[in-house]
């Protein structure tokens, strides 16, 4: 191998340079990102976030990703990032967690555009200006036809704190319902929440720029 220290070239830059632009994840991402047992390449991240020592109530979250025609998006990937039940983010210096709960999950949609996660219900975390945020999960949506990750949030319909959440307050009133998962019975003895993601058109999910 060459001995060139490629790190030095980066350090020599002056001024801010442009980002590497995003490109679509395409239709074949599951080879690298969600291989499960199909390709002899082990998955790093899955759709079951619960660990033995995870703090919080176990829940199921599921829903469908739908396009502008109302058709399911079978080749979408949903990623989630969340705090544990005590409002602690894994790995963070600000809110250190001492459990093995990673708080990050990834699920590829099935032929009906359906995704599902097994996780714990997140606690409240700090917001801007000494506020407190309602329990929520950050969501990234990727698919063929999506050139850059779509960012939204899942809130829960049984949380009174939604009314004072500083991020929900920025969302036009007619779009807030698209960010709130609905409790719908149980699945595998866990509370089940349903959260559909509509990419375009009637009932379009509110997405964020951040």
């Amino acid at each position, binding site marked *: *191998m*060459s001995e*060139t*220290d*490629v*790190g030095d*070239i*980066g350090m*020599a*830059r*002056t001024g*801010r340079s*442009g*980002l*590497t*632009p*995003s*490109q*679509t*994840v395409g*239709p*074949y*991402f599951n*080879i*690298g990102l969600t*291989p499960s047992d199909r*390709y*002899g*390449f082990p998955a*790093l*991240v899955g759709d079951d976030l619960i660990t033995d020592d995870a703090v919080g109530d176990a829940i199921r979250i599921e829903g469908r990703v739908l*396009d*502008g*025609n109302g058709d399911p998006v079978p080749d979408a990937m949903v990623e989630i*990032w*969340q705090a544990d039940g005590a409002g602690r*983010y*894994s*790995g*963070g210096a*600000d809110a250190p967690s001492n459990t093995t709960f*990673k*708080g990050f999950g990834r699920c590829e949609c099935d032929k009906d555009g359906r995704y599902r996660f097994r996780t714990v219900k997140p606690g409240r*975390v*700090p917001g*801007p*200006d000494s506020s407190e*945020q309602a329990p929520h999960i*950050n969501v990234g949506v990727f698919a063929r*036809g*999506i*050139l*850059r990750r*779509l960012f939204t949030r899942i809130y829960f319909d049984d949380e009174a704190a939604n009314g004072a959440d500083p*991020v929900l307050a920025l969302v*036009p009133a007619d779009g807030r319902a698209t960010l709130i998962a609905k409790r719908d019975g149980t699945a595998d003895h866990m509370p089940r929440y349903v959260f559909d993601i509509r990419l*375009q058109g009637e009932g379009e999910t509110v*997405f*964020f720029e*951040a």
Partner: protein
Amino acid sequence: MTMSTAYPLDSLKAHPPYLAPAYVASRTRSPRRPLVIIPHTLSELSGPVYGHESVRDLDNDLTRQHDGEPLGQRIVVRGVVMDEDGRPLPGTLIEIWQANAAGRYIHAVDQHPAPLDHNFTGAGRCVTDPKGRYSFTTIKPGAYPWRNHPNAWRPNHIHFSLFGPSFLTRLVTQMYFPGDPLIPLDPIACSVDEKARERLIAKFDIATTVPEWALGFRFDLILRGRSATPFEEPRS
């Protein structure tokens, strides 16, 4: 109330729009409602950590995952992951996937009538070293046809997925190869302006090229960086 954005929003202009009409699939998969600008809270400023414990030693060599060697032009792709100020980003997980030398993905949905290579899966991962450096050994992926428009072909490319230090630095992109005549015809590559597109194209690098073994390409990746000074803007 003020809205603080730790990472400047201006930088996001490098990204493609959600709707790029020439890329047909974007027409029904792009939002029509305006995006809502939100502050960068702990939820956005934290992010998952996947370190060296998550990655096996040979996960960055796609030519050694099977009994035999894959067919095609062996290549080394390496570079630095850094932020907008050129600060290297160590400990960043990189995941890649790609077609084989004939332009065929192992994925079941890919029905392009080009041969599969049973010695090539086309998936790899690694974590950047303390200087933000990464390296993959693989084979050069082939071009392949797709149905976006008549006689549409994707340029040779490798898919890259990166995390960076927070939820906001997450990036999924594609690396293209220098001199590929398909790039200016590709609606995905052309969804970004010409100057930004240059940053998606690797450079041939004789210093990375391994004598008697593999051609070398250099591909640096630039993720969002926090503002040098605390930045506040009025709430919109």
